[in-house]
């Protein structure tokens, strides 16, 4: 089960497994139209932008590095509702 946890002013995606967290992360990226900006991070960290080439450690890294972006997207999304 995936939840959103607010801690120290930031919003984190929390789930038991990396597959759960990454699935939710991918949903958020698609829903908010963030794929270009996630690609910025992937290009920097991994030198490519292919999500299906990421192993679990890469997925954790990507979620962590995109946390400020996801946080901002969730905040803007809330404000639009």
């Amino acid at each position, binding site marked *: 089960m995936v939840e959103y946890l607010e801690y120290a002013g*930031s919003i984190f995606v929390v789930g038991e497994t990396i597959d759960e967290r990454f699935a939710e992360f991918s949903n958020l990226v698609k*829903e*908010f*139209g*963030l*794929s*270009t*900006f996630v*690609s*910025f*991070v992937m*290009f*920097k960290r991994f030198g490519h*932008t292919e999500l299906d080439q990421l192993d679990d450690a890469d997925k954790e890294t990507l979620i962590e*590095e995109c*946390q*400020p*972006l996801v946080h*901002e*997207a969730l905040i*803007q*999304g809330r404000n*639009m509702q």
Partner: protein
Amino acid sequence: MTTTSEVFPISDLEKSCPNRKAKELFRLWRRAGRDPEANYDAFIPYSPELLLMCKPTKDKPMSNLLFCGRDSMATRIFGEDWARTSGKNPNVFAPDYGEVVGRSQAFSLETLEPVYDFVSSHVGQEPMVYERLLLPVKTVAGLTFLVCYSMPLELPDRVSFGSSDEPQCDESPQKTYCSNPHPAADA
């Protein structure tokens, strides 16, 4: 010492800016804006030199930084560790830096218009002078962000941080990209 900025007409970018990447990014931004899907993937190859930002906070400069390319001006000055920490360290900047540089950011986000401006400030006692191209981007979900490309004119040496978090400039030389096409703005 204080921070100053000057906004140039965006037409100056094409007329007098010698930086080809800035011109190309602006061209790509205009083209993406006409795309109903608002696809900005053409920016990806340029991302190592870009910043991605959200709405600025006046008293916390760079706290709105969401992504910092490894070859961006900020990473070159402050290092990768600084660029990765989400809280950043506002103490490295002049006291008025956040307010001054945030004006153009806020304007661009509110109007969804690009901004080409000039910023003169300092880090410690060292000058930090650059031009910026701010490109507002709106996602298919209606979220807005800023893509920033900085063009250094005069930079401090690489900054390191001691235990006091006070910026300390290294002695290695720092390169700049281009000469200032707007010398009047230096005065």
